[in-house]
Each structure stands twice: as C-alpha cells, then as structure tokens.
C-alpha cells in the first residue's frame, strides 16, 4: 500500500511539474521549432522570470501582479535579444554562440543585482491538502491550471490568428509572408518575444515552489532543449506530451533511486532517444 501510494504520488506530482515544463518548452518550440533560431538563452529567460517574480512580490507586497508584469518584461527582453542577434539568427553555430552570450549576460546581471544566495518566495496560497498521504499545496494545482490556460491561449494564437499563421509559415515560405502583410523581421521579433514571455511566465509560476538562483536557468535549459528536439521541431503538442512524460519518468526514477542517479538515468534515456530516433526522410541527405 505504501509503495502504491508512493508511485501514485510520483505520477501525479510528475504531471503537475510536467505542465510547467511544457509551458517553458512550448516557448522554446516557438523560437527554435518555428523560427529556427537556436536559443540557448531560453533557460535564462525562465530564470529572469523567477527572479523578477520574487523581486516584484517583495516590492508590491503581493504575488499576483507578477503573473502579467513578468511575462511582459521578459518578453521585451526577448525582443531586445532577438533585435541584437538578427544578423546571425539563421546560422546555427553563430546563434548558439550569440544566445550563449545573452545567457551569460542575463545570469551575470542577476548575480550582480540579487547575489548568488538562493532566494525563496513564500507561496501566495498557504493551504494544502493530503495527496496519497503527503501534504500537497493548492498553489501547485493553481500553477498547473494557469499553465494549461496559457498553453490553450498559445494554441489559439498559433492556430486561429493571422499572426500565428505567419509564424508557422515564415520559415518555409519567406516570400509568402512578405507578400501578405506583416513584415518578416517583425514576425521573428514578436515570435521570439512570445517564446521568451512563455519562459518568463513559467519562471513566475515556479518561483514560489523552488529556490531561485542565477544558475537555475542553465540547469533547466538542457532538459527543455531535449524535450523540444525529441518531440519534434515545431510540433508544439508533441513537446507538451514529452515534457509531461519526461517529468513523470524522472519523478518515478527519483522515487526509486537517489536524485542524482535518477537524473543520470533520465538523461541517458533521452540521449539514446535523441541519437537513435529514426529520421523520417527518404533521401540520403
């Protein structure tokens, strides 16, 4: 009975965390999957989101405004970064290097402004309930709910708006996008900003649940990248499924192993998947 409830708890907790992971992954999927820009700085946008949420909550005395303000600020940071790197964004190697520069700059800025000591933000909802014998905060449920709403909004933007259509078409058919209104450079800027804002929102939502450090972005970045590539570039929904699967597997593995071994096992699994995933292309290219 003990074991069953442990597994059930691992599963459910995995799903809840997976939804947060799906949110930040879907942001990268817009930037990398749709626009084709290799954005190493994505984890740093998430980190900035968490720090800004912590900072604003302390200043304003309440957490809730951060949910709107932080994505806006981080989205703006994203647009700024994209503007700087516009000349090299088509080149994979150079955009890795350039966005890595953005990573270092953002991480360094956080370190200068707020220091390296881990920050904690008290949960805006203190109440909790018993989940298979373990105390579970209502806030986590709410955070997952907000993430789901954001994901549905993203779906709406991508599938049902003119901007979303352009965003999906811009890589395959640059000419077409030029011909039909929104200039291509704007689509890139706005798309990058949208992706960064999603990472910022994700950072805001997890801020009350984790310890906030300048390095937290780099830790999550590799995971997010793996999820986006493993799920298939540009396929936003696959990435959501993969994020949840990853989180559940990791949750279960860490139930049975110590955290480090669990993490190692998960990484090996995804690495194998990444290397041996068959490529659905007929030519030898």
């Amino acid at each position, binding site marked *: 009975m003990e074991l069953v409830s442990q597994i059930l708890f691992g599963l459910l907790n995995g799903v809840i965390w997976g939804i947060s992971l799906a949110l930040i992954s879907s942001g990268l999927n817009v930037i990398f999957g749709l626009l084709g820009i290799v954005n190493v700085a994505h984890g740093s946008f998430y980190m900035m989101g968490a720090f800004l949420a912590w900072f604003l909550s302390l200043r304003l005395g309440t957490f809730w405004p951060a949910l709107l303000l932080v994505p806006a600020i981080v989205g703006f940071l994203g647009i700024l970064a994209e503007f700087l790197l516009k000349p090299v964004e088509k080149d994979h190697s150079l955009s890795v290097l350039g966005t890595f520069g953005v990573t270092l700059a953002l991480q360094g800025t956080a370190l200068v402004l707020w220091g390296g000591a881990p920050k904690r933000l008290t949960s805006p909802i203190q109440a909790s309930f018993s989940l298979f014998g373990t105390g579970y905060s209502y806030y986590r449920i709410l955070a997952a709910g907000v993430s789901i709403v954001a994901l549905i909004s993203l779906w709406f933007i991508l599938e049902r708006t003119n901007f979303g259509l352009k965003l999906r078409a811009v890589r395959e058919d640059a000419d077409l996008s030029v011909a039909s209104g929104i200039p291509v450079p704007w689509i890139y800027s706005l798309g990058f900003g949208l992706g960064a804002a999603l990472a910022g929102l994700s950072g805001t939502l997890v801020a009350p649940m984790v310890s906030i450090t300048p390095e937290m972005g780099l830790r999550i970045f590799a995971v997010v990248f793996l999820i986006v590539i493993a799920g298939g570039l540009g396929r936003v929904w696959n990435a959501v499924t993969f994020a949840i699967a990853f989180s559940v597997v990791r949750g279960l593995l860490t139930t049975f192993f110590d955290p480090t071994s669990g993490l190692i096992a998960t990484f090996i699994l995804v690495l194998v998947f990444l290397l041996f995933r068959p490529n659905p292309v*007929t*030519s*030898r*290219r």
Partner: protein
Amino acid sequence: MSDLLSIRGLGLKIDGKEILRGVDMELASGEIKGVMGPNGAGKSTLLRLLAGELQPTTGELTLCGQDMSERPEREFSRDGISYISQRPGPFRDLTVEENLRGAAQRGSLFSRKSVRGKVDRLAKLIDMERKTDVVVSELSYGEMRTLDVAMALASEPLLLLADEPTAGVSGGVAGDIVDLFKDLCESNRNTPFHLDGLIFVEHDKGTVFNLADRVGFLHDGRLVVEGTPESIRQHGVVAQYLSEHEFD
C-alpha cells in the same frame, strides 16, 4: 558489357509523390547524352540519383556492369562518377588551389608530388594558373562554374554528370565549357583527363543539340523519347515543347 551505364526501371517516390517513374536508359562508351524537358520533369532528380545523392525507391543502376543501387554516396565518386550540381559547389572559404587539391588528393592523400602535378594540370586546363591563391568567394559566377568542372575531373572519372553547367554563365565562358566537354570526350584514352561518357541537363536547346550525340526528353517523371538530335526533333511532345520555348 559494352555499356558504360545502364539503368532499368528507375523510380523515386518522396512523401508519396512520384518524382521519377520507370526510367530506362543506356549510355554507350564515348557517348554524350543531353537530357531536356520542362521544369519539374525530374531532370535534376535523375542526375542526383545517378550521382548517388539520392537513393532510388525502385529499379537498378549499373556502372560498367557493377550494381550501384545499394552503395553509399561517396563510393560513386570512387567508382568513376563525377557530378556537377545545379548550384556552384566549390568551397567558398578555400582558395582555388585548395579546392583543386581537395578534389585531387582523394585516394592519394599523402603523395604530395602527384597531387601537386594534377592540380597544376587542372589549373592549366581551365586557364586559372594565375588565380590559384584567390579565395573562391571572390571569383565570378562563370569562374566558379569552370572550377566546378575542373574539380569534377580531378578524380579522373569515367562518367561526368553535369546539371545545367552553363546556365547563368556568360556566352564566352559557356562556349569554353562546351568546347572543353567535347575535347574531353573526343580525346585519347591516354590523355590525363579523358571522359568515357557525359550526361548533362540543359535548358538551352542550342547547347543540347550542339553537344549531345543522343538526347532524352523527360516529361512528368517519364523518359518520353530518346534518340539522335535529328530524330527527336520530329517527336510530337518534343516538337511542341520546342515551339513553346522558341525564344528562350
């Protein structure tokens, strides 16, 4: 086997779309074959299949009696097929000399002297002895195309495949390339660069009928007709295509 190249029932499907279907073709030793046809007929695809860049879904491909269908791309070059693609292919960051050397040294990586000699002969062949230290990105389009030809010859191939080698090149240079092809095919077997066969794709009718011994006409992924330049002009589909493109 007297045929240099023979293909049987060659077909290619990508994402359920048939790009080529059931193409049969022979190339006799010493023959120059031109391939023409409307855009999207599958001309470039045919060459890429012959060059090993694409793998056919059906059919077989034999070079000098040897089955090539399952071989990896790089072995096509080693077995005597060279390929000039539609876009200029020299390495843009390397010099002319480095490009030639890179193409010539394959198979004799460390016999510097023989590689050096071959590079010199190639540079002379295309009249670029004075430009060997120039970086390719500073060459003109026509020069890049000519360099492409020299690089393709560096492996001393039996068969050369050329995809629109003179398109976009000025008249004089285009003439030089055509003359070079003729010389290479007519030359003695013992001359340094000799071709046993040439297959080329071209839009320009003049070039096709001037250079080719035999012409194949592709339409919608099929080889509709093949024959001497004189005979093929009479064929209905070809005649119609030629009249529609009178002023190209």
